[in-house]
């Protein structure tokens, strides 16, 4: 009985995992590539939403960490012939370290000031990489970043990305439901009340900031060897805006909201680019519609409807019992 209700509740998840596992046998290479991009960008969006949806602070510089993860891998692998796996670890490490430094300043601020300072730091890091031609390749970026032989096929790398994405999602899921995640939500809801329960707000915000930077760095690090290159555009504020839109589209207050948002964005993007370059107009229109019609995002709206339905059912049951 218990098993059956578990299956009923989590059946969609199992279906989804099976779907991802068999996808390379079913869909074309083009769409596998798009799936890879969607998963990597979803991980990026989840890292962003730890700050936005859970901690309640809008970061507009998250792409800096995504880009740093990617650059660390690209430079270590092409310039120093570093091991692929060690480079991934180094990419996460660099993003976390810079996250610690940037976060140290940002967590002192709230709201729009937090957003603007993350934007400023993000652009600062972008400019350093963009201008430092001798070291980073400047606007040429870095090409020829190849994964090891056994990961060179699209399918093999797809499974690596899926594994990293699934594991990271699980870790982040546990994190937001842990006492630490509860504390982030409490700070979002009422930082004054939380401080007066004995919580050092800035310290917790800094930890969350570093964790978010680490996962953004992981997303960038895993993407670059798949794409075989990295460019300064990975760190721009335009890139930082993508997880913001994904979160708003899918719903920042539902854990998987940003993932759904990113999948929709990535697939529509890939589809629309087939016949027009005016992609931003289409995306802008979609965001506009979402904000006015479904203010909690797609999953936020769905969750609310489900809850309403359940409440009505509960009331009917209570009514029947008392009647």
């Amino acid at each position, binding site marked *: 009985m218990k098993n059956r209700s578990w299956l009923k509740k989590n059946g969609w998840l199992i279906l989804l995992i099976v779907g991802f596992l068999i996808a390379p046998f079913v869909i074309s290479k083009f769409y596998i590539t798009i799936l890879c991009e969607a998963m990597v960008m979803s991980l990026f969006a989840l890292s962003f939403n730890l700050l936005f949806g859970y901690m309640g602070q809008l970061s507009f510089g998250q792409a800096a960490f995504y880009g740093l993860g990617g650059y660390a891998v690209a430079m270590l692998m092409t310039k120093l012939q570093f091991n692929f796996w060690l480079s991934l670890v180094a990419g996460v490490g660099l993003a976390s370290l810079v996250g610690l430094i940037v976060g140290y300043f940002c967590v002192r601020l709230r709201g729009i000031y937090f957003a603007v300072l993350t934007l400023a730091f993000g652009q600062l890091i972008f400019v350093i990489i963009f201008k430092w031609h001798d070291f980073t390749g400047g606007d040429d970026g870095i090409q020829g970043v190849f994964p090891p032989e056994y990961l060179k096929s699209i399918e093999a790398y797809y499974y690596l990305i899926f594994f990293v994405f699934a594991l990271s999602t699980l870790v982040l899921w546990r994190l937001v439901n842990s*006492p630490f995640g*509860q504390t982030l939500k409490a700070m979002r*809801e*009422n930082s*004054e009340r939380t401080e007066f*329960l*004995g919580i050092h707000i800035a310290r917790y915000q800094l930890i969350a900031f570093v964790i978010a930077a680490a996962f953004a760095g992981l997303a960038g690090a895993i993407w670059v060897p798949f794409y075989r290159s990295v460019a300064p555009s990975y760190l721009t504020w335009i890139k930082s805006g993508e997880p913001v839109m994904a979160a708003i589209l899918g719903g920042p207050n539902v854990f998987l909201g940003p993932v759904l948002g990113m999948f929709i964005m990535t697939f529509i993007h890939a589809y629309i680019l087939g016949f027009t370059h005016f992609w931003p107009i289409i995306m802008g229109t979609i965001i506009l519609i979402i904000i006015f019609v479904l203010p909690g995002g797609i999953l936020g709206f769905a969750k609310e409807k489900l809850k309403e339905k359940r409440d009505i059912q509960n009331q009917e049951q209570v009514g029947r019992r008392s009647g």
Partner: protein
Amino acid sequence: MAEPILQTFNITKDFGKLRAVNQVNLDVKKGDIHAIIGPNGAGKSTFFNLITGYHKVTEGKVFYKGSEITPLPAYQRCQRGITRSFQITSIYPKLTVYESVLMGLLAHRRKTLTFFPSAKKFFKEEVWKILEDVGLANQANVLGESISHGDKKRLELAITLGTEPEILLLDEPTCGMSPEETESTMIFIRRLVNEKGLTILFTEHDMSVVFGIARRISVLHQGTLIADGTPEQVRNSEEVQRVYLGGVA
């Protein structure tokens, strides 16, 4: 006589040219129910803010259990056992009643840096005990924003109890409550003191509440302490009669 748990020496707070609290010396004794009263703008809330670390003092010192806490930030004072409620009810709108109370316990018992186990597994018994004590158990899964005003006040009290305070500072604990809610809150506060040995320092507008439960009353007027004593002494003080109580008590 019990020893003082909290002492202030000449604490003063200036906001620009305005002196909100002026050289107040006060002892709060352990296990007492101590009221701070005074007309609007007397400096009651500011005085609270100085003790809890919300504001920094301009001058003077605050001692808690014999050691100075004046330089400590708010969260450290709370970790040591000084917890407060706010005049304008301060709760978590989008957390459930249960999650809100759990937050106080997680914070106090230093579990907030636990990253992987589910928060729901922690302190179930303790949370339910507090919820039943304050009478919110039947609303455990309701969002903080959805409960009545009086219940929000009770929820804030419940959240603060999660931090297992030694001294609880309540800023207008019955403000906006119905007479029945006020009555039950008073009974509850008295019980906290008698059963758990808590010390209560509170401000209140409602004189029937003040004279109903306080064992000691201090009167602030324009930032200065003008009277301090038992309810009888304060009621009979001529100065208090003149500046504040008028014909009320």
